[in-house]
């Protein structure tokens, strides 16, 4: 087994551990942490930078020996990254110009090289770049493992992104559900209220109806009383003596007729009052 085979085996072993670790990541911060911790076993670099461009936003992961910086509030991209997004052509060039933030990484004079690749995943455009020098040397044979690393990171990133979206949607659904429940309660309260009002109104109407029926019964009764007397007198009138007719029957007839008239007047007055009451309501 030659040296390169041994190196391969060790690297792949490290990569499988790396894969196992990132599969457990619950959020992007943890993912960045794991990449930072494990990537040094895969290849050397001074700076590893992964810029993920979705249609909505840009997320950038920066790794140096010391730090892992994760940024997703639309950080600005370097000129070479914009170039990569445009032409998608991988490159490797000398990088003496100090374009990087000195607090993140120091560009040395030991043959600094900047590597850049473009990857396309459905609707994701990814720029991966590596800054290396003689102290931390990145070589061509490391590209394959870098590609695997980017693959693994992006797959996980998509999964986490999807999870986040799902959570967001779930939250929205939950809120919508709560709102619906709240509205339902409100609606049933309104319905209950209406029911109570209807019940009260119905009771009121029944009461009024009963009252009117009673009035109408009483009226009919009060009308019939004097009327029946008048009819009674008419019934016997042929059998009365002149004396009886003048001294009693005619007076009774007049009295009953007056009572009938009085009753009818009362009824008219009462009905008018009831009608006025109805009109007022």
């Amino acid at each position: 087994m030659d040296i390169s085979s041994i190196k391969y085996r060790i690297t792949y072993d490290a990569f499988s551990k790396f894969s196992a670790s990132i599969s457990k990541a619950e959020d992007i911060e943890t993912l960045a942490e794991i990449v930072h911790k494990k990537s040094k076993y895969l290849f050397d670099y001074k700076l590893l930078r992964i810029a993920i461009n979705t249609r909505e936003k840009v997320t950038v992961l920066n790794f140096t020996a010391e730090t892992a910086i994760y940024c997703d509030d639309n950080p600005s991209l370097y000129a070479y990254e914009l170039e990569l997004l445009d032409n998608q052509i991988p490159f490797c060039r000398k990088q003496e110009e100090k374009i990087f933030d000195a607090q993140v990484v120091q560009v040395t004079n030991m043959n600094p090289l900047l590597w850049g690749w473009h990857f396309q995943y459905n609707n994701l455009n990814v720029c991966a770049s590596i800054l290396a020098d003689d102290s931390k040397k990145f070589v061509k044979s490391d590209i394959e493992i870098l590609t695997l690393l980017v693959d693994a990171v992006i797959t996980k990133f998509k999964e986490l992104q999807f999870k986040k979206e799902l959570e967001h949607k779930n939250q929205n659904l939950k809120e919508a559900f709560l709102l619906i429940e709240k509205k339902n309660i409100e609606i049933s309260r309104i319905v209950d209220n209406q029911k109570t009002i209807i019940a009260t109104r119905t009771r009121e109407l029944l009461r009024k109806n009963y009252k009117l029926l009673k009035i109408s019964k009483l009226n009919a009764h009060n009308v019939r009383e004097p009327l029946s007397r008048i009819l009674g007198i008419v019934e016997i009138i042929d059998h009365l003596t002149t004396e009886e007719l003048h001294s009693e029957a005619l007076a009774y007839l007049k009295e009953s007729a007056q009572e009938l008239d009085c009753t009818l007047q009362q009824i008219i007055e009462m009905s008018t009052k009831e009608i006025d009451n109805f009109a007022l309501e």
Partner: protein
Amino acid sequence: MIQSLEKLKQKLDIFLVDDQKITNFINKKLMNISGVGQQIYDFINPRKALEELEIRKPHLILLDLNMPDIDGWEFLEQMKNYKTTAKVVIVTSSTSKLDIQKAKKYDRVIHYLIKPLNTHAIEELIIAYESQ
């Protein structure tokens, strides 16, 4: 049969109980026309009629329902406190079925007549009295 009915008519002592003097006058006249009654007493005060129940011992009472102070129903109830065999015919201007049903609960009530009465109604109540 007809002869016995004629005899019966003439032998009856009758109370007329109605708060309206006119009604009593009419009914008394109708009785006269139909040849009904040996003695006919009319009362516009039902209490007075109750008081005289045991003295006059009427065979038949024509009773109005709708009266102030004590009404026909109260009169029927109070009759239970007197020694009397008098039968009652209710004479009312009420056509209420409830009243008719209520009247049937009293054994002494033998007939129910709607005002105004006429000679035909008088015949009816005599037949009702004879056949009970």
